[in-house]
């Protein structure tokens, strides 16, 4: 008697790694932007915002959509 195979969906390790790298980039970007703003250079803000938005969109996509199917009981 064979047990039915269970399919589990997980996020792939590669996607998790990319998300981590994107967060490090975000941290560096925010620190740089904050330093620039404190120096009175506000012209970097629009560009930095859209770059940060794009990175966040990629992170959200990876966190919610990137999956790997595992077959088996565990």
């Amino acid at each position, binding site marked *: 008697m064979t047990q039915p195979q269970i399919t589990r969906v997980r996020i792939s*390790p590669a996607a998790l790694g990319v*998300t*981590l790298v994107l*967060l490090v980039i975000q941290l560096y970007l925010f620190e740089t*932007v904050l*330093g620039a703003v404190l120096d009175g250079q506000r012209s970097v803000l629009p560009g930095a915002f859209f770059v940060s938005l794009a990175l966040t969109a990629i*992170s959200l996509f*990876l*966190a919610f959509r990137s999956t790997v199917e595992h077959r088996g009981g565990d």
Partner: protein
Amino acid sequence: MTWWRRAFPLELAEEGHFSRREFARFLAVVSAGFTAGIGYLWLRKKPLEGASDPEAKHAELPVALGLAADLQPGQSRLFKFRDEHDACILLRTPKGELRAYRQTCTHLGCAVRYAGERLECPCHLGFFEPDRGFPVQGPPSRPLAAIALEVRPDGSLWAVGELPKPTLESLDRRADCPREKTEVTA
């Protein structure tokens, strides 16, 4: 079973479980937080506290600083510029040139003081050179905000505005910054 376990029936094994996907979602939310922070800085019209604001929309009110000849090389004097919280320092460099800077250290905001040959921040031992306000030692990595000075025909000295901070685009900073001079000459 102890009373507190009955009062708080937590299954610790399950509570400690944190899936890979939940972690990825947490990272994505933190990433969104950084984006929101940059967006807030973009939309915020008022400069951050202690931030340089060379493009102030309001008209600058010149502040009288006394006679220019009163200050000898190596001496300094404190003054307020835009308001009572805007502490600045006027100094005459050993070369005899007058300079004025905002007194806020660019590291963590302590008040810098003039120690004869350089400006020093006593909190974390950061030092700035007096000619341009560049950091030369210690934790600060950004130059001090400089105040524009004007000597009028009667010899009186006035603070008339804030100078924009030097950038790589606006001047040959690498050649002028003492901290990076070694990199240029190397």
